[in-house]
C-alpha cells in the first residue's frame, strides 16, 4: 500500500527505535533529551512519509486561476501528495521544539539540585 | 380443689419438706462422720441449729441486699418446691405446677442462688465473693449436661411439662427414663452431683480455703432462713429428679424412698472422693457428662 516510501518509513521507524532506546538505556539526562529529539524526528519523518506518494508534486497551488477553476483543481489534486500530514508535521515540530526546550530547562535545574546528570539519582519518590 | 385448701396443703408441704431436708442433712453428717471414724452429731442437729439461730439475741447486717439475701434464698427454695408436682395426679401434692413447665423450673432454680449471691457480695467479705465466683462457675458447667438431658427427655416426651414427662414413664419400672434414656440419666445424675455440692464438688464452701464461702457473714435469723431455704431447695431438686427419671411417685412413701435414694447417690460419691479444684470441676462437667448428654440427644433425634 505504501509503494515507494518504504525506505522513508523504515528510516523513520529506525530513528524512533534509536531514540526511544536511548531514552531507556542511557543514564545521562542530556542523552535522554537527545533520544527524545531523535525519536521526534523519526515520528515527523514517518508522518510525512505516510502522506507521500511517488510521482506527485507538492501540494501547492502555483496558479491563481486554479482557485476559480474547480474542475481542474479536482484533477490536479489527484497529482499532489497528501497535504494534511505536512501540515500536521509542522505543528508537531513546533511542539517538539517546545518540549525539548522545557526538558532541557528541567535538566539544568535538576543538575543544580543534585550536581549530577545521572537519571537514577532522581528516584527518591517511589513505591 | 379450692384455692384456700390448696394453699393450706402447700404450706404443710413446705414445712414437711423443710423438716425432711434438715433431717436428711443430719443423716448425712452422721454417715460421713462414721465413715471418717467419728461419732458425729445427732441426726436432729439441724433442728437444734435452726432453733438456736432463731433465738439469738444479736443480729447484724451490711445493707439492704444483705438483708434481703436470705429471703431470696428461702423464696427461691420454696418457690422451686411449689413449681414441681410432688405426686402427679394428687391435686394436693401437685403444688402450683400449673404456673409453668420444666423451663420455668430450670430458670427458677437460679433465682435463690443469684439473689443470695447479691446479698453475700454486699457483705464485703472477700471469701463470699470468691465462693460466689466458684459457685457460679460450677453451676454453669453442670448446666450443660443437665440441659442436654432435659432436652432429650422433653423431646421424647414431646413436652416440657413435668407432669407429661412423669405420665410418659408410667407402666412399670422399665419405663422410667432412668432405663429408657440411660445416657440422659448418666448426664443428669452426674450434673446432680454438682448441684448438691458435696465432694468432689464442694468448692463453694471449701472449708480449708474460704471457710464458709458465701454465707460467711450471715448470722442469727438470717442464717436460719438460709438453712431452711437450703433444705427445701435440696428436697425440691430431689423431687424434680424423681419426676424426671424415676417415674415420679404415686404416694408419699414412694416419694421418701426415691428421693432418699437419689440423695444418697451424691453422699456415696462425696464420701469417697477428695475435692476438685474449680477448673477441674468445670472441665469434668464439660467432659464425659456432656458427651453422654450429646449422645442422649442424638439418640432421641435418630429414634424420631
Amino acid at each position, binding site marked *: 500500500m505504501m509503494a515507494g516510501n518504504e525506505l522513508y518509513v523504515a528510516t523513520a521507524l529506525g530513528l*524512533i527505535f534509536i531514540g*526511544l532506546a536511548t*531514552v*531507556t538505556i542511557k543514564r545521562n539526562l542530556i542523552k*535522554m533529551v537527545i533520544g527524545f529529539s531523535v525519536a*521526534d524526528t523519526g*515520528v515527523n519523518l514517518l508522518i510525512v512519509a*505516510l502522506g507521500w506518494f511517488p510521482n506527485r508534486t507538492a501540494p501547492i497551488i502555483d496558479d491563481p486561476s486554479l482557485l476559480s477553476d474547480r474542475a481542474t483543481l479536482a484533477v490536479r489534486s489527484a497529482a499532489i501528495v497528501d497535504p494534511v500530514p505536512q501540515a*500536521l508535521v509542522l505543528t508537531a515540530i513546533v511542539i517538539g521544539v517546545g*518540549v525539548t526546550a*522545557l526538558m532541557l530547562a*528541567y535538566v539544568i535545574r535538576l543538575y543544580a*539540585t543534585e550536581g549530577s546528570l545521572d*537519571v*537514577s539519582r*532522581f*528516584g527518591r519518590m*517511589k513505591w | 380443689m379450692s384455692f384456700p385448701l390448696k394453699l393450706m396443703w402447700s404450706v404443710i408441704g413446705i414445712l414437711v419438706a423443710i423438716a425432711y431436708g434438715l433431717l436428711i442433712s443430719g443423716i448425712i453428717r452422721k454417715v460421713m462422720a462414721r465413715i471418717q471414724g467419728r461419732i458425729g452429731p445427732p441426726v436432729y442437729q439441724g433442728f437444734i441449729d435452726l432453733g438456736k439461730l*432463731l433465738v*439469738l*439475741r*444479736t*443480729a447484724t*447486717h*451490711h445493707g*439492704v*441486699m444483705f438483708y434481703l439475701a436470705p*429471703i431470696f434464698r428461702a423464696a427461691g427454695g420454696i*418457690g422451686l418446691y411449689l413449681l414441681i408436682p410432688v405426686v402427679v395426679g394428687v391435686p394436693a401434692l401437685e403444688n402450683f405446677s*400449673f*404456673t409453668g413447665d420444666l*423451663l*420455668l423450673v430450670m430458670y427458677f432454680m437460679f*433465682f435463690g442462688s*443469684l439473689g443470695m449471691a*447479691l446479698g453475700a*457480695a454486699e457483705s*464485703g*467479705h*472477700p471469701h463470699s*465473693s470468691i465462693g*460466689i*465466683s466458684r459457685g*457460679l462457675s460450677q*453451676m*454453669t458447667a453442670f448446666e*450443660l449436661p443437665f*440441659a442436654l438431658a*432435659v*432436652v*432429650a427427655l*422433653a*423431646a421424647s416426651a414431646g*413436652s*416440657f*411439662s413435668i407432669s407429661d414427662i412423669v405420665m410418659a414413664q408410667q407402666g412399670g419400672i422399665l419405663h422410667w427414663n432412668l432405663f429408657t434414656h440411660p445416657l440422659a440419666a448418666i448426664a443428669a445424675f452426674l450434673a446432680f452431683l454438682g448441684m448438691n455440692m458435696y465432694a468432689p464438688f464442694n468448692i463453694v464452701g471449701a472449708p480449708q480455703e474460704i471457710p464458709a464461702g458465701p454465707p460467711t457473714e450471715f448470722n442469727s*435469723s438470717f442464717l436460719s432462713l438460709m438453712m431452711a431455704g437450703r433444705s427445701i431447695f435440696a428436697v425440691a431438686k430431689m423431687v424434680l429428679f424423681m419426676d424426671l427419671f424415676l417415674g415420679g411417685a404415686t404416694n408419699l412413701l414412694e416419694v421418701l424412698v426415691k428421693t432418699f435414694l437419689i440423695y444418697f447417690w451424691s453422699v456415696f460419691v462425696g464420701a469417697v472422693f477428695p475435692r476438685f*479444684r474449680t*477448673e477441674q470441676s468445670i472441665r469434668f462437667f464439660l467432659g464425659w457428662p456432656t458427651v453422654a448428654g450429646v449422645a442422649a440427644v442424638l439418640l432421641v*433425634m435418630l429414634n424420631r
Partner: protein
Amino acid sequence: MVSPMLLIAVPLAVAFLLPVIDHLGRTATRVVHLATLAFGIVVAGDWLYRLAGGAATAEILTGGWPPPFGINLRLGTAEAVLVLLAYLTAFVAALYLADREEESNVRGTVIQTVLVVGAIGLIMTRDLFNTFVFLEISGIGTYALVVFGREKSGLEAGFKYMVLGSVASIFVLLGVAFLYKLTGTLNLDDMAGKLSQAMVAGSGLILLLLLVGMIAELKLFPLNGPAIDLYDGAEPGVMALLVGTTVNAVFYTFAKMTALYEGSQWVEAITVVGMLTFVIANLFAIRQKKVRRMLGYSSSAQLGLLVFLLPFVRSGEILASTVGLLVVNHTLAKAALLWLAGIEGNEELDGWRGAFATRPLLRVGLVVAVLAMVGLPPFPGFWGKWHALVGLARGGHPWWITILLLGSLLEFVYYFGWLRRVFDGIQERAEALRPLKWTEVAGVVGFTVLLFFGVRMLGEAWGSVAALALAAVGVVLVLASVIPGRMQAAVVLLAVAATAWRLWGTQLVLSDFRGLILTVVLFGAMVVSLAGLGLPAPRKSYWGVFLILVGSIVAMIETTSLLGFFAGWEIMTWSSYLLVSSSQKGSRPAFLYMVFSGGAGFLVLGGLMVALGGGVQTLAGLTTLTGAAALSAWALLAAGFAVKAAAWGAHIWAPDAYAESPDLFTPFLSGVISKLPIFGLGVVAAAIAAPAISYLGRAFDPTHILAWVGGLTAFGMTLLAVFQEDAKRLLAYSSVGQVGYIILGLAVMSPLGWTAALYHVVNHLLFKGLLFLAVAGVIYRVGSRQFSSMGGLIKRMPFSFVSVLIGIIALAGVPPLSGFAGKWLLYEALMERGWLLLTAFMMFSSVIAFLYCFRLIHSIFLGQLKTVHRDVREAPWPLITAQYLLVIPILVLSVRPRWLLDPLQRLVADRFGSSTLQAVGDNTLVSSFGYFNAIAILVLVIVLFVGLLIFLLTAGPRAKKVGPLDIVYAGEVPPPPEELHYAWAFFRPYQRAFQPVLRGAVSAFWRDVADVSEAIADAGRRFYTGNAQTYVLYAFLLVLALAGIGLAR
C-alpha cells in the same frame, strides 16, 4: 447566546495578554485572570442550563468547512458539564494559589490559563490531531506548573512525568498518523465509521499504540508511576487544578476515542486495565504513609474505575450520565481533599493526628470529601456507583461486580485509616496554628457544598419527608456548633418526639414489622437524647450527626425501594461511624467498625445486585426471586447482615466499638443499631425464599447455617463477656451475644421463632439500654470503666443500682422479669423445629450469662466501697429519668408479656400463618411443648417475698447495721477496702477451664488477613521503582504484552 468558541478563545487571548497586563500591577493580573475564569463559568453554566433545557448541541466549524474537512468542536451536555467543572476548579484554584508567590506570579497565572485552554480544547474537539495538540498543550502546562513552589520534589516528579508523557505522546502521534493513513480522515466520528466498516489489517497494532499512549496519559496501571510521584511531589493546589481540568479532559478524550475501539480486540483490554488499576492502586494505597501519595493512588484508582466503565457505556449497559456522576464526584471530592492537604501541610499520614481540631468547618469538609470519595450517600459517587453496578448486574457481569466491590473495600481501608489518624488525639496540637485566608478555604467549602447536590437523588430514593426533615435538622445542628451540647440534645429530643407524634398511628404501629422497628428506633433515640440532657456531648457535631443517623434509619425502614433501603443503610453506617469515633479513644475502634461495616455493606450490595439483575426493584419484589439467584441473593444478604450484627467470625470489631463509643452513644448502638441488621434479615433476606441446597444428594436448608452462626455468636460472645475487666466491654460482648439469640430465632423460620426473636429485639433494647445508661452514669461519676476501680457503690448510687439489678435480671432471663418469656419462647421454638442440640447449647450459654451479670453488679455496686468514692454522687437526674423510662416497660412486659406478644403474633402471622403459641385464659401462654403463666409466677414470688420479709422483720432480734469493714476476719483488723474488694480476674478458674477455646483464633485470622494484604501491597508497590527509565520500559513491555495477548486472538 455566547459562542462556545469563546470558551477557548478568550482564555487563550488572555493568556498571551497577561504579561502585558502585569505591567499594570499584580492586582490587575489577578483581576483579569479571575474575570476570565468567571466569564467561563457564566458561559459554560449558561450553556449547561440551556442544554439541560433541551437546546440543541452546539457544533462549531472552524474555517467554515464542515467535518470531515474542517476541524469541528462540539458542546453537548457532557462537554458543558466538564467545561463548567474545569472553569470552576480553575477559578477556585486561582483563589487558593493567589497567596503563593510562585504560582501566582505572571508566569504561573499564564500557565494556569493555558492549562484551562488545553483542557477545554480537549473536551470540545472532535478532531484527532487537534486532540494531540491540546494534549501537548496540557502536558507542557503541567510540566511547567508543577515545578513552581516545590523546587526539588516538584522537579523530580515533573521530570519523570515529562519523560513518560513524551513517550506517550510519541505513541499517540504514531497512532494518529497511522490511523489517518488507514482511514484518510482525522475526524473522530468519521474515522470511527470508517474503521468499523473495514477493520483493515494492521489497525490492531495501530490502535494498540494509541491505547498504550492513552493509558500513560490517563495514569492507569502499569504506567501510573510518574503520575503518583506528581501528586507526591507537586503543590497540592496545583494538583487540584489538574484534577478539575486536564485529568477530566484526558478522560473525556479517551471516552470519545472508545468509538474507535468498538469491535476491536482491545475492548477487553480497556476493561481489564481499568479494573486492574482500580484494584491495584487501591491495594497499594493502603500501605502509604504519605497523604498526597495516597491521594495519587486514589486518583489513579478512580480513573481506572471510570475507564473500566467506558466499554459498558458504549455497549449501552451503563448510561453516560452514570459515569458523569462519578467524574463530578471525583473532581469535587479530590480537589477538596488536595486543598485540605495543602492547608494542613503535613506530608506524613501520622502527622495528621488531631488535624483541624480547632477548625470545625474544615474538618466537616474533610469528612464530607472522604465520604464522597469512597462512594457513600448522599454524595454523587454513591448514585454513580449504584447505577453502574445495576448496569453491570443487568448485563450479567457478576465477577466484575465482585472485583469492583473488593476494590471499593480497599478504598475504605485507606480513606478511613486517614480519618482514624485525624480523629486520633482530641487534644489540640502544640504548635501555633497558621492563620488562614478565606481564599484558601473557599475551594474546600465551595466544593463540599456542591457535593451535596446528591441530596436531590436521596430525596427521590427515600420519599420520606420525616427522614429528610430529621436529617436536615441534623445538618443544621452540625453547622450550628455554637449551640451548647445539652441544648442540642433538647432539640434532638424534640425533633424525634415530633417525628414520633407525626407518625403515630400511621407508621408507628406495633402490628407490623416496620412499625415495630420504627418504634424501637424512635423510643431508643428519645431515651438517649433525654439522657443527653445530663451528660456533656462528646463532640460539637455529635447531636447533629445523631439526628442524621436517626433520619437515615427512619428512611431505611419506611422506604420500599432497594435503592432507598441501601442509601439509608449506608448513611446509617457512616453517621454511626462518626459517632463512635467522637470519643477520646474512639478513632481506632471506629476505623475497624467502618471497615467491617463497609464489608457488610458491600455484601448486602452484592445481594441487592443479584436481585436487581433478576429484575427486582422493590423490597416487596424480592419474593419473586427463584432458583440460584434466590440462593445467592439470600446468602449474600444474610452474610452482610450477619457481619453487621457482629456474628461470630466477624465479631472482632464490636467490643471495641461499643466500649470506646461515647457513653451516650453505646446504649443506642447496642439497643437500636444492632437491631438494624435484624430488620434487614427480617425484611430483606427473609423475603427471599432460599431454596434448599442439595449436597451429596441430600437437601440441606441454608437457614441451618444461619442458625448455628447465631448460636455460636450467642455462646462465644457470652463466654468472652465473662472475662472482661471493663464494664462497657463486658456489656459490649453481651450485646453481640444477645443479637446472636435474635439471629437464631429468625433462622428458625417459624412463627414461634420469629415471635421469640422480635420479642427479644424489644426486650434487649430495654434492658441493654438500661444497663448501658446506668453504667454511663457510674463511669461519669467514678471516671473509670475498670471493675477493679469500682465497688460498693450501692450506698452512693442506689437508683443506678436498682436499674442495673432490674437490667441483669431481665437479661439473665430469670423469672419473674420479662427476660424469661424471651428465653422460653426461643427454646420452645427450637424444640418445635427439632433443633435439640441447639436448644441445649443455648440453655448452656444463657446460663453463662449469669456469670457476667453477677460480675457487673458485684464489681460495681457490691463489695467494698473505695475510700476515694466515699463522696460520689448519684448519676445526673436526666440519666436516671432515662433509665426509669426503660424500667417501666420492662415491668409491664414482665406482668403482661401478651401486650407485646399479641401484636407480634399478628404480624408474624402475615408471613408464616398463625403460630402454635396460644393464650389459655388470660395469662397462661401455651405452645406445643410447654406453658407458663407470667402473672402466677410474679404473684408467687411476691407473696413468698413479702411473707418471708415479714417473718424476718418480726422473728428474732432487730438487726443492727454494721460498717463495711466489720467483717469476720479471723480476729484481725481487715486491710483497707481497696484490698478487700475481689473484682479483678473474677472468673480466673473459669478462664483456665475454657483456655482451649479462648485462643483467639478469629482475631488471629483477621490479623492474618490484614497482614497478608499489607504484605502484598508492600511487595507490589515496589513495582514503582522511582526510576524514570523503568517507567518507560514498562510502557514498551505493556505494548509487547498486550500485542502478544491481543494479536494472538
